[in-house]
């Protein structure tokens, strides 16, 4: 279990992370969402003892990371898949880590097989690896010590669609067996597909956290009618906020039931009425990060999402 309490990290006059509080219970996958530069990596580095908090605390199982005698046996960490010596082979990278962790050498082969780097890939130098292969090697390193907690920074970067699907299954299985997963991403769809809980950060501040269902419910309902103006009047009459959504639909700020009732009272036939799951999260993400301050300068563009999702 991970607990981050009132975590603040200041660089000179700039607040990279400001009073961030959230927790990741065992048995769940927590998605740590935010645009680039929002403070995700700084938070994760502080959690793993690589940066000191200015104030507040980050603990794993009630203890600070630096207090764990052999942290790799407890917490699997992947903060940057690119941070590997280009002149070392993948197998050697894992062998070095296995020695520090004190796990048997056989574990290296098992992990290489698990992430699909067994055979020729293990003997190749990391400099020849694609980013996707480095992510797999990073995951193998994180899993080598058989930890109960995984902390992963943008683990889906560089993975192909099959690799992303595989990683989701791996993380889901890890959490279902009682493990705790905290993974960051600026890609909404990646996180939405695997996370039980979300923590959204923007401009160094936590703007939302909770279970995915709670946050999605708060995101409202997608509703569509042939007569859009009539629907807008019906919603306004019922006192329900709304915004324009994709394809002429409306995103109403309430549960589907009151939205449906409002339309029925006004006699407006509906073509669509559903919780704003996928689109809702995206709207939520956009609106929250926009409200969060300067960090909204780097929103996730649809093209970038499609290229990576």
């Amino acid at each position: 279990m991970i607990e981050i309490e009132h975590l603040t990290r200041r660089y000179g006059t700039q607040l990279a992370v400001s009073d961030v509080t959230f927790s990741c219970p065992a048995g769940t996958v927590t998605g740590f969402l935010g645009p680039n530069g929002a403070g995700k990596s700084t938070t994760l580095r502080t959690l793993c003892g690589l940066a000191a908090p200015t104030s507040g605390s980050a603990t794993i199982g009630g203890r600070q990371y630096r207090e764990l005698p052999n942290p790799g046996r407890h917490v699997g960490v992947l903060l940057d898949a690119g941070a590997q010596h280009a002149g070392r082979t993948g197998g050697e990278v894992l062998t070095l880590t296995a020695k520090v962790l004190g796990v048997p050498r056989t574990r290296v082969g098992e992990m290489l097989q698990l992430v699909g780097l067994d055979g020729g890939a293990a003997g190749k130098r990391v400099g020849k690896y694609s980013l996707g292969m480095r992510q797999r090697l990073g995951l193998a390193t994180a899993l080598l010590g058989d930890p109960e907690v995984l902390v992963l920074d943008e683990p889906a970067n560089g993975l192909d669609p099959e690799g992303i699907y595989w990683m989701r299954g791996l993380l889901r299985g890890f959490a279902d067996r009682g493990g705790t997963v905290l993974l960051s991403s600026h890609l909404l769809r990646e996180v939405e597909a695997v996370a039980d809980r979300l923590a959204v950060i923007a401009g160094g501040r936590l703007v939302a956290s909770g279970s995915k269902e709670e946050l999605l419910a708060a995101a409202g309902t997608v509703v569509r009618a042939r007569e859009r103006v009539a629907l807008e009047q019906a919603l306004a009459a019922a006192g329900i906020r709304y915004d324009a959504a994709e394809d002429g639909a409306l995103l109403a700020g309430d549960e589907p039931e009151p939205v449906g009732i409002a339309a029925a009272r006004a006699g407006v036939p509906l073509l669509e009425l559903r919780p704003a799951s996928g689109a809702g999260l995206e709207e939520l993400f956009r609106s929250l990060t926009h409200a969060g301050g300067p960090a909204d300068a780097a929103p996730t563009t649809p093209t970038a999402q499609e290229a990576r999702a």
Partner: protein
Amino acid sequence: MTTTTEPARSSALDAPAPSLATLVGVELRKSRDTRAGFWLLLTIGALALAVPALVLFFGEPPEKTFAEYVGAAQLAVALLLPVLGILLVTSEWSQRTALTTFALVPQRSRVLVAKLVAAALLAVLGVVATLVAGALTAALTPVLTDDPTSWSIDAEQVLQTLLVQVLNVLIGVAFGLLLLSSPLAIVTYFALPTAFTVLVTTVGALDWVRDWLDLTTTTGPMYEGRLDGQGWVQVATSAALWLLLPLVAGWIRVHRTEIT
């Protein structure tokens, strides 16, 4: 590809920390398991063999002794082994492996102590290699030339050579810690002491600086085992400037810096 791992469990919470011996072993392995490290070690070994061989073929008969061969071979170790010491530290930053290293061992001083011990062991290995190279050359001298050889060597020469080579490598590590950048540390390691030597040996008024703070001057006699008396104090004062100062400053820097 499968999607199963062993079930998560909590018994590993207090898995023992890696021993210092383990960390030293890992650092020694890191020094040779990369392409750059491997070739650097091989080059040092080849030079340690080549320099005595040059003396064997082109030197004058009085130089063709075991002790002289060993002395000549020190050049290779003194020149290149400190670079290995520098890379032991700076490659963690230039290749960004520090992220993994310090995530696995958050007590940064333990990693740094392991690096210093590993570097010192490499220096000992380097001197052993020069002894082997010297012995090999001495054994071949009567075979390949008409000149006689001598197997006598002063224990003091071996001991002081060992000490000065360990000192050289540790200075490399200290420069690496201070600068955390391979090119910067290597250039500074070679340029700064050399410029200092040139300055204090040409400016007459700086004679006392040369005698007390210039490493080239103070450690020079050690390669022949001739250091004694006040010489030891002068080695200590110059080592304080070139080893202790950058080591302490670098140590503090590494502890304060955020690993990214």
